[in-house]
């Protein structure tokens, strides 16, 4: 940690001093701000340009998803989870369906697992592409945004053909998949992989060795490995700080153990490392998809799940490696058709907590870069 008590509350009691009198300036970023990726309000306490402390005010997108869950059946709640991290809706659905399947003690059949893995990894690529475009735009490079969005279209087309929706896909059901792969699914995915392979090269050409990009992202928003673990940060942020941990490898779910892929890690835990880690993750996701699409087994796509889902009394916690980090579902069942409690452990919420630690001592322009590099989605932070 940088400070003696970095998580001490911000001293915001200076309403009667104008900013011309003291050296400290309190600036409010958001909730409407081009760079805060949603409705996030960050109150910055500045000394000139240096940030002394931040306070995040969240909850602008709080929709009470966990309360809603208590009034819906397990199947009815499935579409709600897409709306949390709306950029990676397929991952959310995967986590929830797998959590309920664990509670029911069923396993999705292999074919369903393959389809799930392919779609989830495609969604990971799409989510990282969106991250790259918006992050680069915040730092000033306008062009990668358009490139990544154009390339993302191909993935969204596949989603649309598969389940009818591009964004909030509701692709999976409890027990497996509802929809069989459409005719030409494998061909589309393979075409996408061939299309995508040179695209990462395009993005990297624009940014990775660019001197301005390096200066804007090196040593910006540094968080060390132990700090990251203590703050509960997960996902690419944790991996860029040097901790080699990915739930897909540590506690594999949905036959990830069958695929060969690497976990990229960084060294310094700065923005540049997080950028490199996510770029490499896109490549590894493409690798997983290639292995998966070449070997989808035949078989059923839905396990035997009762029509009315009434799990036994008990609790379960299941987490997956969403593009943003560890997405967990803690479900308490009381034996009825509606869950007693659904708790979503949102990776963006916990990662956002680390913002304060990461921007102390940085300049205002870096706050924007760090918010971008944390890759938060307010739908998930607020639920």
């Amino acid at each position, binding site marked *: 940690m940088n400070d003696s008590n970095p998580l001490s509350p911000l001293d915001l009691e200076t309403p009667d001093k104008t900013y011309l009198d003291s050296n400290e300036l309190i600036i409010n970023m958001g909730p409407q701000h081009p760079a805060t990726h949603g409705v996030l309000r960050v109150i910055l306490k500045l000394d000139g340009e240096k940030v002394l402390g931040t306070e995040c005010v969240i909850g602008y997108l709080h929709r009470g998803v966990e309360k809603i869950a208590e009034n819906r059946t397990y199947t009815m709640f499935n579409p709600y989870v897409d709306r949390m991290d709306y950029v990676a809706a397929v991952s959310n659905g995967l986590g929830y369906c797998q959590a309920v399947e664990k509670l029911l003690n069923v396993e999705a059949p292999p074919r369903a697992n393959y389809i799930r893995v392919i779609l989830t990894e495609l969604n990971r690529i799409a989510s990282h592409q969106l991250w790259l475009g918006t992050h*680069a*735009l915040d730092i000033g490079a*306008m062009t990668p945004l*358009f*490139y990544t969005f154009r390339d993302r279209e191909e993935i969204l087309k596949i989603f649309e053909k598969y389940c009818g929706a591009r964004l909030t896909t509701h692709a999976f059901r409890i027990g497996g998949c509802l929809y069989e792969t459409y005719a030409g699914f494998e061909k589309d995915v393979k075409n996408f992989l061939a299309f995508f392979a040179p695209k990462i090269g395009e993005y990297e050409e624009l940014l990775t060795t660019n001197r*301005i990009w390096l*200066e*804007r992202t090196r040593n910006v928003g540094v968080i060390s490995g132990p700090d990251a673990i203590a703050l509960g940060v997960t996902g690419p942020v944790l991996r860029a700080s040097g901790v080699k941990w990915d739930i897909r490898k540590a506690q594999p779910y949905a036959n990830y153990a069958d695929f060969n892929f690497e976990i990229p890690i960084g060294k310094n835990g700065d923005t540049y490392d997080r950028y490199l880690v996510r770029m490499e993750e896109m490549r590894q996701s493409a690798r997983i998809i290639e292995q998966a699409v070449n070997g989808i087994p035949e078989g059923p796509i839905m396990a035997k799940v009762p029509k009315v889902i009434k799990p036994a009394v008990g609790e379960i916690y299941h987490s997956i490696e969403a593009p943003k980090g560890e997405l967990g579902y803690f479900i308490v069942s009381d034996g009825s058709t509606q869950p007693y409690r659904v708790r979503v452990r949102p990776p963006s919420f916990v990662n956002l907590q680390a913002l304060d630690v990461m921007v102390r001592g940085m300049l205002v*322009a870096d706050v*924007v870069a760090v918010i971008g590099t944390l890759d938060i989605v307010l739908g998930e932070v607020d639920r």
Partner: protein
Amino acid sequence: MLTAFMSYLGSEVSPGVAGNQLWALIYILIIFGGVSVAVIAMNWLERKALAHFQVRLGPMRVGPHGLLQPIADAVKLLIKEDIIPTEADKVVFWIAPVIGLLAAFTVYTVVPFGPSQAVSDMNIGILFMLGVSSLGVLGIVTAGWASNSHYPLIGALRSSAQMVSYEVAMGLAVVSAILMTSMNKDGTGTLSMIEIVRAQQDQHVWFLFKFFPLGLIAFVIFAIAMVAETNRAPFDLPEAESELTAGFHTEYSGLRWSLFMLAEYAAMIAVSSIAVTLWLGGWLRPFPNLLSGTAFDVIFSFFPGLTFLGLAAIAVLGTMRMPKHNYFRIQTLGLGAFAGVLGLIGLLLLVIAIAAPISHNGFLLRAATALNNVYWFVVKIAVFMYLFIWYRATWPRYRFDQLMAVGWKVMLPISLGVLIVTAIVGVIVS
């Protein structure tokens, strides 16, 4: 009046030097109109080129391929509500864009489009340009101050700090180019813009290539510093949307904002013209040494006409590729007419270029040389304009402290070093 008009014709010097106020006024009006048209064209080009860099099309609807978009933008800005913040200092708020505009346009008095195609030829031309263009900072600071809101204020202060720091490097680079002008026969240098180009002509080398690589380094320093001077990417933090809303012109809307935009583009053209004059041989045609001789002179004299004919051909191609649908009839006609106009201009230029050496008519010869001079000058400036747009599309922007660090810790020492080495080499050689 008529004598004033006629007495200037056939003159080999600019109207200012010849003392002819009428022609000076005419030139001023031509330049004013030309720069305004250039700014409008730049606006269109920026949107189209940026769009094509970003895999999209840009304006396509307002006029064929968006050619009338700048006019639509201008009309929109003119009819917008003029909002002045209540707490703003009204007089200063009004004056700020005017100052910026004045500073940006006054420099065109000495920009040499040709040996006699300039409004005037002050013997301190380059000093005048650097000095007056620095007045633009005043406009920005007053704009930020008068807005009475802390985002514009921060943006204005940053912008002024940035401009001032890069001025130093710019100035030193300019001085090293001036030193090179003194390498001519009688050993005297000059600050006059036209004489600088003449010096390059007499020394048979563009200062870009003189004392290689010193001229090149000085040129590169100037090229980078001029991007920072004009607050363009990658040095556009003062107007970065994602950080400070819109910097010093946040509170300006409508016509006042368009004046700032006009001043910015005019300043871009002005500093590019400094670069072109000092290092790229001004109005001289390219490859004067490599491809020398009257044959090549004649070939290069066809370039203006051929350029316009080429543009006309592109426009014709565009017309043919227009969708064959009722909705596009007017656009197709418009584009075709535009192609026709371009083609006519091209033909006219070509005719002049061909007829001039053949007919030995004094008037035609002078017209042809004048056209050539202006053409090459404008082409070189157009290359710089394209580079400005290219930089904006490609690179992220510098953070403010990094920007200042580059200006003071990198550019200043290098330009100082180049200056000293140029001086030493110059003394040794002469």
